[in-house]
């Protein structure tokens, strides 16, 4: 795969490497310092359910801000223009608020330790085992994608051979998660969040200055790419042609509803951060505290993408060495002097590690508590599972190195990730939403809903779209449609299976279904949690209103 152009070698010097080295030392130091906090398996896999909300909230957003996301979203900005905001404002915020306000009381209140464990409580073992295995495989794949992309980026930017950076980053992540467990992963993610911001802000500011500010940027792009490039909704009427290959309906339903709700509400790599919070109020605030940075991070990736589209008009086409994914590295090379350059390189590596660590730390939890402890080696003492969790972390990292090369056949890494999500996450969401709101949904319906949704999304993507049976202009557009197909198929099959199979006894549904409560959930709110700025409903609706307001300048 041609991921980064050669010619992008950065003029790094000792100063930059000092900054990077300090970072590596601190990351490992956090791992060792967190070691003392690991006494039980709950400490190792879920930080003992004791984290404050600001930490879990920033970890929640950092777990999503992996480098594949940053480079991929800047690429989307360079390719499709302002439409990239959809992935943030409609494609993230509503789902994050829904997770916090509607789903978190069931997740956190039922005391499940993972997303698949919720399925075990609500449905049956077949749904549980299937989702655990799918999740375990998917997280190793995604961690592999991260490592592979890191190898290529570091080779292009710093000239290290690919295997060196893959091994260094892989071992670093392996070390700090094995030693310190989820606490170490979460602490490092919060640190990474700030380093990533410190890297992106100078790039964005200098990039804007280079092209004559926002006005200069928009007038150049208007001339070269047309008005729709600078509008979120321009050209998205049904039947109109646009670069994204999607109309407003598939954007709202496919991206905004199915894909985004599937990712944000059932992807355990995200939900795990909220489950590690210290009480229900903190768990609910986790995605909400993440939502506010998420609303504004889009500017830090979209603007570099747009600037690259101005500076290299042929970017991503045969006429240029640079691919869309090169947008941020290209600006780093062009604009940053040594010093800030070191921060930016550190931020980029931090982002790769954040993305990978989120997947590894959720993989080891699901593999240990959901697969190993429930089906393979049951009823051993708690210390055994901590030891096993450390072992499987190491195995998982090694396996993800092996799968790194699967990413090579897709030109845009985001497309690859979203294809995976549309296969695995979409049916998860439909099963959750029906399971949480419909008491009658039977034990067996969960499993068949998952199967039907996954198969339908795959058939739509690989047969109907790839074989050209229905004409969809782009991979992105096809992803949105596949997601909708998977959702509908999963829902129909769940209802059909429910009608012929027996429901779960009502007594076992306490705290899992809308309208019921977990016994023992009447915990008193902690002192200070009733302050107005800690009210989940206010934070949630505030985020939605803010995201909607952000659309206004780009909609007319």
């Amino acid at each position, binding site marked *: 795969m041609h991921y980064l152009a050669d010619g992008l070698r950065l003029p790094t010097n000792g100063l930059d490497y000092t900054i990077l080295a300090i970072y590596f030392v601190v990351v490992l130091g956090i791992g060792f310092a967190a070691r003392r906090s690991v*006494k039980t398996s709950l400490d190792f896999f879920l930080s003992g359910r004791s984290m404050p909300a600001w930490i879990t909230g920033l970890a929640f957003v950092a777990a999503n801000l992996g480098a594949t996301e940053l480079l991929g979203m800047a690429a989307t900005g360079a390719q499709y223009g302002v439409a990239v905001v959809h992935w943030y404002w409609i494609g993230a915020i509503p789902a994050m608020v829904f997770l916090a306000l509607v789903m978190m009381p069931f997740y956190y209140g039922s*005391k499940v330790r993972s997303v698949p464990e919720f399925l075990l*409580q609500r449905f049956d073992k077949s749904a549980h085992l299937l989702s655990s295995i799918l999740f375990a495989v998917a997280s190793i794949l995604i961690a592999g994608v991260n490592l592979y992309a890191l190898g290529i980026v570091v080779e292009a930017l710093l000239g290290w051979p690919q295997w060196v950076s893959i091994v260094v980053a892989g071992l670093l992540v392996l070390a700090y998660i094995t030693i310190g467990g989820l606490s170490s992963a979460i602490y490092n993610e919060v640190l990474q969040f700030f380093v990533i911001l410190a890297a992106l802000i100078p790039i964005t500011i200098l990039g804007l*200055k280079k092209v004559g500010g926002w006005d200069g940027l928009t007038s150049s792009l208007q001339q070269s790419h047309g008005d729709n490039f600078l509008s979120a909704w321009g050209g998205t009427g049904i039947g109109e042609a646009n670069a994204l290959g999607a109309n407003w309906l598939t954007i709202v339903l496919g991206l905004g509803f199915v894909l985004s709700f599937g990712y944000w509400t059932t992807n355990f790599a995200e939900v795990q951060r909220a489950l590690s919070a210290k009480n229900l109020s903190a768990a609910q605030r986790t995605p909400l505290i993440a939502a506010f940075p998420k609303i504004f991070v889009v500017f830090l990736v979209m603007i570099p993408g747009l600037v690259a589209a101005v500076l290299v008009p042929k970017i991503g086409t045969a006429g240029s060495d640079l691919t869309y994914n090169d947008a941020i590295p290209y600006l780093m090379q062009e*604009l940053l002097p040594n*010093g800030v350059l070191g*921060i930016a390189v550190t931020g980029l590596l931090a982002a790769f590690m954040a993305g990978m660590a989120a997947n590894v730390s959720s993989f080891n939890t699901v593999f240990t508590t959901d697969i190993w402890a429930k089906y393979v080696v049951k009823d051993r003492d708690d210390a055994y599972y901590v030891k096993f969790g450390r072992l499987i972390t190491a195995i998982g990292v090694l396996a993800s190195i092996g799968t790194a090369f699967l990413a090579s056949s897709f030109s845009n890494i985001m497309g690859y990730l979203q294809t995976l999500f549309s296969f695995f996450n979409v049916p998860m969401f439909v099963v959750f939403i029906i399971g949480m709101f419909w008491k009658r949904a039977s034990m067996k319906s969960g499993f068949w809903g998952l199967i039907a949704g996954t198969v339908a999304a795959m058939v739509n993507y690989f047969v109907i779209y790839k074989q050209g049976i229905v004409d969809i202009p782009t991979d992105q557009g096809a992803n949105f449609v596949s997601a909708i197909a998977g959702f509908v198929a999963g829902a129909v099959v769940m209802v059909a299976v429910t009608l012929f199979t027996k429901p779960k006894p009502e007594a076992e549904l306490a705290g899992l279904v809308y309208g019921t409560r*977990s016994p023992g959930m009447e915990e008193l709110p902690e002192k200070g949690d009733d302050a107005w700025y800690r009210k989940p409903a206010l934070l949630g609706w505030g985020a939605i209103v803010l995201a909607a307001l952000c659309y206004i300048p780009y909609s007319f």
Partner: protein
Amino acid sequence: MSDLQREVSELESKSATAARLFDLRRIIGYLFLVYGAIVTIAGINPSEADLAKAEGVHINLWTGIGMLVLGLFFLAWVKLRPTAPPTPDEE
């Protein structure tokens, strides 16, 4: 109460995380003070070439100062709101 809830509650009562985990705010504070100092010093007297590359902006200086401020913010936060003393182990 289900088996799961009993198991997790029991683990929670034995958990060590809340009591033994160090304060992250201090780490962020010191790291950004160090980074801020390095980058600010690099930016105090920029070479012509560096300045031209960064569109005439003293980017190292500004970024360094920004990072110093963030570091100080976290350290001030620790000072003003120290972590509550850990509750004694109930064993």
